[in-house]
């Protein structure tokens, strides 16, 4: 199981994760989210970019790590703005989610 997971981290997936993280970082930097939301968006960016890389490798046969790294950046960028997308779709739900995650972080800091 662990070996199977480790083998899925091909160079293409690793470059996609780097591209996705870079793109998501641009999106996250534009917003003033709390640390938990920012981390969540970065992880989503990396995951979405890896998924896209997986699709490009398996369905289209793209093997170049540089092409995959560059293609992953806009995918990560969109992920960095996911909270804005939620805000556009439902402002109340977005505010609720941000407050909930923010409160949890503050509670943890207080306990620490």
């Amino acid at each position, binding site marked *: 199981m662990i070996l199977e997971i480790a083998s899925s981290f091909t160079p293409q997936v690793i470059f996609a994760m780097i591209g996705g993280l870079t793109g998501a970082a641009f999106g996250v930097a534009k917003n003033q989210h709390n640390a938990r939301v920012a981390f969540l968006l970065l992880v989503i960016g990396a995951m979405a970019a890896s998924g*896209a890389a997986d699709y490009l490798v398996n369905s289209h046969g*793209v093997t170049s790590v540089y*092409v995959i790294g560059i*293609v992953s950046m*806009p995918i990560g*960028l*969109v992920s960095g*703005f996911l909270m804005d997308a939620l805000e556009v779709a439902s402002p109340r739900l977005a505010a609720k989610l941000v407050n909930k995650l923010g409160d949890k972080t503050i509670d943890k800091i207080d306990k620490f």
Partner: protein
Amino acid sequence: MPIRELIHSLSRLRVWLFLYATRVIEFVNALFIIGFSLAFVSDFADGIVNMYSLKSYKDFSSMGLGAWLIFMFFGVAQLAAMSLLSLRSTKASALILMTSGAIWAMIAGAFITSHHGFITTAPYVYGVWSIATCCAGYELISASKRYERLSDGGG
């Protein structure tokens, strides 16, 4: 040139290029999306899918009718969002621009494979358009956030 200075110069270039031209890019992008996906949708409507037998488009054969209809929806949504004049619709339009930029980048990637590298014009055209839509979307959402902050601050 230090990396910090390079990023700063690139940001200034992006602002200079896309500060006023976002409306044109939104409109052209919507037409590009609708036109691109309509070619595939009309091919599916005929019953015989001829486009996938062409060398340039054979790598798109994994895309079904549903995928092209969703892509077409982005174009229609872009037209609808850009025609409304509110902060929410501007943000929606910016997000659609960036999402379509990601899709154009994937299309450029697919063309690179089907054309065995950068030997034809397709990867350049779709790649450049992807960069343009992403930068315009980023600039548009940045501008709407600045406007939102000024409005909240009573400025």
